[in-house]
């Protein structure tokens, strides 16, 4: 039986119609086999467009619909709904992409129209062979996994837990808190960063719905949206978490106390082999660094380990081993944060050449009253108070040889530190700042900037070519583009404000989670404007700086958004599965198992079945796991595997249709 097909051509304002002759295209469609109606409209995705399609379906008793418009990634879902409202199976729809793949790519109207005709003809050929598909349902595990315990992970976990969902929060380091815990004050309100963060950290620690897993790492993720199985490795702390009371007597007792560079203090301060990264750590339990501890590296610690002697409850356990744990979750939020670019790669800024060239995060630890200098600003080389401090912005940021992007927090964090330095060192301290542009775009930021400019500070617009270590002090030549003059700055301490970069191991996590990264290495969102918390993998969301640089308020908003997006999935008992997945023709399958080795989602298994008295081995697709990627289809040598939305016969018909062009 011949199907009745309708073709609907969208102008997309002038996005399509300025390059493709839509009238001609509509008339052309009418000449194609099985097409009974063809219409065009300015915006097919509008209410009126939808109405036009629906009415045409009903009036002409259409079986299949072709819409010539933008990419299916934009509006395919919208149009499936429209088709369904006309009582046609939503999968009897074919999108002919004449915008991204035609009008936007070309300028010659005649040729573009010719190409658009080919695209439509090919879509009609497929539409004739489309088969109705039915969505199936799966049960959803109502638990969430949050990876990363910085402010983004904390916010997302609390939001989900408050909704009554079970949350597993996994953090790599011994305590949650992340970068925000390292900061002294936040801009532009000068809130004490620790004071506003610690209550949230405690909420996480105490929340009945949150299972906190610190000093833990992700091992593997299997399954798909609604039902993930995740393996997590809890690294040995060599401290019994139940027995430890958090008295920290061990930390004071350690033989190596004050001898190992502290990661939390950006190596500006020292810790022992058993340590708590900072006093407000959650959980407040000791952790033994297995790479430094004398017992663990040499099997001997003087006359006996002092931590064991000091620990009344007997919580130290040198025999502890890493443990693996399996959890089941329905959605995952990744909130792994950022790293600060190591400025050593920019040799000209003397970071590796002078102790008195530090990064802004290192300065943050100097300013902080629980930091290595108890809040005193002392230059690292001679522990004296600097009389002059110079900030260099955009170190590696907005730089084609390092990071092309803006770090979005550099300007404001430097201005904030300048304010705090005036407080700590007195108004007589000379403060210089070399900037590219001051980007003070947030609420209250511009006012803060104006305030600092009004103080006794020197602003130079330009990038110094070099920071020179001249022994006693540092010299910087800066060409100020506002006055067109070259200045030579002699200064005691240089603070570099480096680019924000993806975590050093972000590629590894992307591999485990099957995530895409944008060219800068940050995790790729599903849509930069409209789906900034989603990834291209359904059920996996991103929050905070792992998606791109953000300040704290944007991070918190992003994290709450991600939690909200995740809860859309987690609050359903059952969810629809896309029926456009792979299917096996058992009669054709030879049981070679090539597809099993190729499937990235472990969605295919080999099964034995008795058919006509014979035992037959064949592949079987797990509908809940199959993502419809099509890898198995192209690998199958016997043609037994077919993709329900892209069957061989459908694709071949499309190719045959464009044969004349």
């Amino acid at each position, binding site marked *: 039986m011949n199907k009745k097909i309708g073709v609907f051509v969208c102008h997309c304002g002038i996005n399509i119609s300025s390059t493709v002759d839509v009238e001609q295209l509509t008339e052309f469609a009418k000449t194609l086999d099985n097409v009974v109606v063809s219409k065009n409209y300015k915006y097919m995705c509008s209410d009126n467009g939808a109405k036009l399609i629906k009415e045409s379906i009903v009036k002409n008793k259409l079986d299949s619909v072709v819409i010539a418009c933008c990419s299916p990634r934009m509006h395919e879902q919208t149009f499936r709904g429209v088709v369904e409202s006309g009582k046609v199976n939503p999968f009897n729809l074919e999108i002919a992409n004449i915008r991204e793949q035609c009008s936007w790519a070309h300028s010659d109207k005649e040729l573009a129209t010719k190409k658009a005709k080919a695209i439509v003809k090919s879509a009609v050929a497929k539409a004739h062979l489309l088969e109705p598909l039915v969505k199936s349902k799966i049960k959803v595990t109502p638990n969430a996994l949050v990876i990363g315990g910085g402010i983004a992970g904390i916010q997302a976990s609390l939001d989900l837990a408050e909704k009554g969902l079970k949350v597993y929060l996994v953090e790599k380091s011994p305590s949650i808190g992340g970068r925000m815990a390292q900061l002294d004050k936040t801009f532009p309100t000068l809130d004490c960063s620790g004071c506003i963060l610690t209550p949230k950290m405690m909420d996480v620690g105490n929340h009945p719905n949150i299972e906190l897993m610190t000093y833990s790492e992700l091992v593997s993720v299997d399954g798909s949206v609604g039902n993930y199985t995740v393996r997590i490795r809890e690294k040995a702390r060599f401290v019994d978490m139940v027995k430890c009371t958090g008295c920290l007597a061990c930390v004071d007792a350690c033989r190596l106390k004050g001898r190992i560079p502290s990661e939390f203090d950006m190596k500006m301060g020292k810790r022992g082999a058993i340590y708590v990264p900072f006093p407000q750590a959650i959980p407040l339990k000791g952790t033994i660094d297995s790479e430094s501890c004398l017992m663990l590296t040499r099997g001997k610690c003087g006359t006996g380990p002092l931590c064991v002697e000091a620990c009344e409850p007997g919580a130290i356990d040198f025999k502890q081993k890493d443990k693996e744990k399996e959890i089941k979750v329905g959605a995952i939020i990744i909130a792994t944060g950022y790293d600060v670019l190591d400025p050593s790669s*920019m040799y*000209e800024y003397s970071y590796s*050449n002078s102790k008195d060239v530090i990064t802004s995060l290192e300065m943050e630890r100097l300013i902080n009253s629980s930091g290595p200098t108890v809040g005193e600003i002392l230059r690292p080389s001679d522990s004296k108070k600097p009389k002059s401090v110079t900030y260099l912005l955009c170190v590696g940021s907005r730089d084609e*040889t390092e990071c092309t992007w803006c770090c979005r927090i550099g300007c404001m964090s430097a201005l904030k530190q300048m304010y705090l330095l005036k407080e700590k060192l007195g108004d007589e301290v000379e403060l210089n700042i070399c900037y590219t542009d001051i980007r003070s775009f947030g609420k209250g930021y511009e006012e803060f900037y104006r305030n600092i400019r009004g103080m006794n500070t020197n602003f130079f617009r330009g990038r110094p070519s*070099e920071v*020179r*270590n*001249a022994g006693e002090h540092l*010299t910087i030549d800066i060409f100020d583009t506002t006055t067109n003059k070259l200045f030579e700055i002699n200064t005691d301490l240089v603070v570099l404000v480096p680019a924000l970069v993806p975590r050093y191991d972000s590629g590894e996590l992307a591999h485990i989670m099957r995530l895409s990264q944008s060219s800068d290495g940050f995790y790729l969102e599903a849509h930069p404007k409209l789906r900034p918390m989603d990834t291209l993998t359904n059920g996996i969301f991103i929050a905070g700086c792992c998606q791109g640089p953000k300040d704290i308020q944007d991070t918190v908003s992003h994290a709450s958004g991600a939690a909200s997006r995740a809860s859309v999935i987690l609050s359903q008992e059952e969810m629809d599965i896309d029926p456009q997945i792979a299917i096996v023709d058992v009669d054709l399958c030879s049981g070679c198992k090539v597809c099993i080795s190729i499937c990235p989602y472990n969605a295919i298994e080999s099964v034995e079945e008795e058919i006509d008295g014979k035992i037959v081995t064949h592949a079987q697709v797990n509908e809940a796991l199959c993502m419809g990627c099509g890898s198995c289809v192209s690998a199958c040598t016997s043609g037994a595997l077919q993709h329900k939305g892209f069957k061989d016969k459908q694709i071949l018909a499309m190719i045959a249709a464009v044969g004349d062009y």
Partner: protein
Amino acid sequence: MEKFALYPGCVMPTEQYAYEMSIREVIPKLGVELIDLKNFSCCGEPIKSVNQMMTLTLSARNIAIAEKQNLDIFAPCPMCHLALTETKKILDSDEIMFDRINNLLKDEDLTYKGSSKIISILDLLYDIVGTEKIKKLVKKPLKDLKVAVHYGCHLIRPSEIGRSDDSENPQKIDKILKEIGANPEYYPEKLDCCGALLSTNLPESGLTKTGQKLKSVQEQGFDAFVDTCPWCHRQYDAKQVKAGETVAAKLEMPVFYLTQLIGMSFGIPEEKLGLKLNQSPVEKIGVEK
């Protein structure tokens, strides 16, 4: 034995004879044969800002002469090396320019193919010969000689077209010097400009740049100053006294070509290395003049 066409450029064969002499002495000892070809012309670099097409044509013409003999080019002058490298980079990636230039070369029956490599003094000494081989030939190590290394600009910049060493932290000359017993030390002015390119329109400013750098090197107690570029060398060696006047300093800094210091460590007689031609006080470190 490796062979290279020696592309002399203009400054070296017309006034900086010492560089050429020391190259012709030292390089063959390292197992590299230098071939002289006829008809080389200007590299084109000095007119690049006025007529880039002319620069490309001249450079391509020189490369084509070497390609006819199936030889890679060794260009000891970093400025020539830059011109030839940049031309190669453009012609190898731009088909239209490739055709235009070859059309211009037709009259001389020359064709630019892109088959020859362009080798700098550092490529040759560090990457092709290697420090191991240099070390083996050292007979008189330059013991305790505290040397300030000057890399100049053309050898290391612009980095995006591919230069012989890192543009911000070059180390290859330092490493070679260590192998011949000398003691190259860091100094903050290491990458400062020699001032040579200002000598036509702002000669005073150029000399000031020269003077500032040498004055600082002298103050920091260096025994010698080493370079590999005939333009830089002219500033630091021949113009040293004048440069000193611009910064009110009496400059007495022995200035050498890298190949001269290597030759000295190999025990090559001083007159063969052109040391008598150095105008800076090289006798301060025991060179007879």
